[in-house]
């Protein structure tokens, strides 16, 4: 049950394009062997769901970005994307791209 005032931030962490992804490659080979030849590439990443007790979406975005940058992603090899969802709406409310600028 989601309480009033609680916000959810979704953080997607992916390997930077220049980094070789052996897991993604292994998955793609498995897809091809299952007949999904149209799968041109697979990159594996991580998904974090943060429940944040902050008063506004902007606060959530700021905190999530800080958490992602400091802990969830390793900036040497990973980049991240954030989506903040209001408690009552399933769809992403706002997104921040990697440079921190709001879309």
């Amino acid at each position, binding site marked *: 049950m989601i309480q009033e005032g609680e916000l959810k931030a979704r953080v997607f962490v992916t390997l930077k394009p*220049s*980094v*070789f992804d*052996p*897991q993604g490659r*292994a998955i793609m080979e498995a897809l091809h062997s299952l007949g999904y030849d149209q799968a041109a590439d697979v990159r594996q990443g991580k998904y974090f769901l943060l429940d944040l007790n902050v008063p506004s979406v902007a606060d959530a975005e700021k905190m999530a970005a800080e958490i992602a940058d400091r*802990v*969830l992603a*390793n900036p*040497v*090899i990973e980049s991240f994307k954030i989506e903040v969802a209001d408690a009552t709406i399933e769809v992403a409310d706002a997104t921040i791209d990697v440079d921190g600028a709001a879309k």
Partner: protein
Amino acid sequence: MTFAVVVFPGSNCDHEAQYMAETVLGQQVRMVWHKETSLSDVDVVILPGGFSHGDYLRTGAIARFSPIMGAVKAFAERGGPVIGICNGFQILQESGLLPGAMLRNRDLRFHCEYISIRVDQTDTPFTTLCTPGQVLRVPISHGEGNFFAETSVIDQLEKDRRVIFRYSNVHGEAIEAANPNGSVANIAGVCNERRNVVGLMPHPERASERRLGSDDGLILFRSAMDALATRGALQAV
């Protein structure tokens, strides 16, 4: 001489490091719990191997926030010799004390086996007794030892001679076939700019008794003792 072995929750090669330093080398050892904040009166700091915090999130990603890391950084800034072994190396990378990051081994499998590494630079506290190009037989034991950094970073590391160890064959050739995990340029270990902090994925502390397989690893720790004896404690090399 006093070795500090830092123990994080989930470290499990602290035991070997302690035995090597205390019983094989006959030195003082202080086991330092990760919540402590002081490293006074130790001469060498070892961050041992293992699975700190279960390798959850990323290897070393949580351990870098431990209270002790402030003291490790200060010790390194004073020029103190620090060696990070396997997970210890990963923690130093996550802390920003060493460059690059570790990916999963390219065959996606854990590898526990003896390999060879070539010592490329002998001007660090841990390699002063080595000869350039010396080949050491040491074991690896990791699932995420695939060293990665952006090309520009690698170029700089090579230019600054900060690649200390490379995976090689027994003849010292750093060829593809001798690379167990896919690391860029066969990099097995690097140092910081100041050359007092060294990290390597292989386990020299496990190669400290011939009857367990090899004692080639001892030279790294004897080097540290020698470097300190010659130059005095806590001076930059």
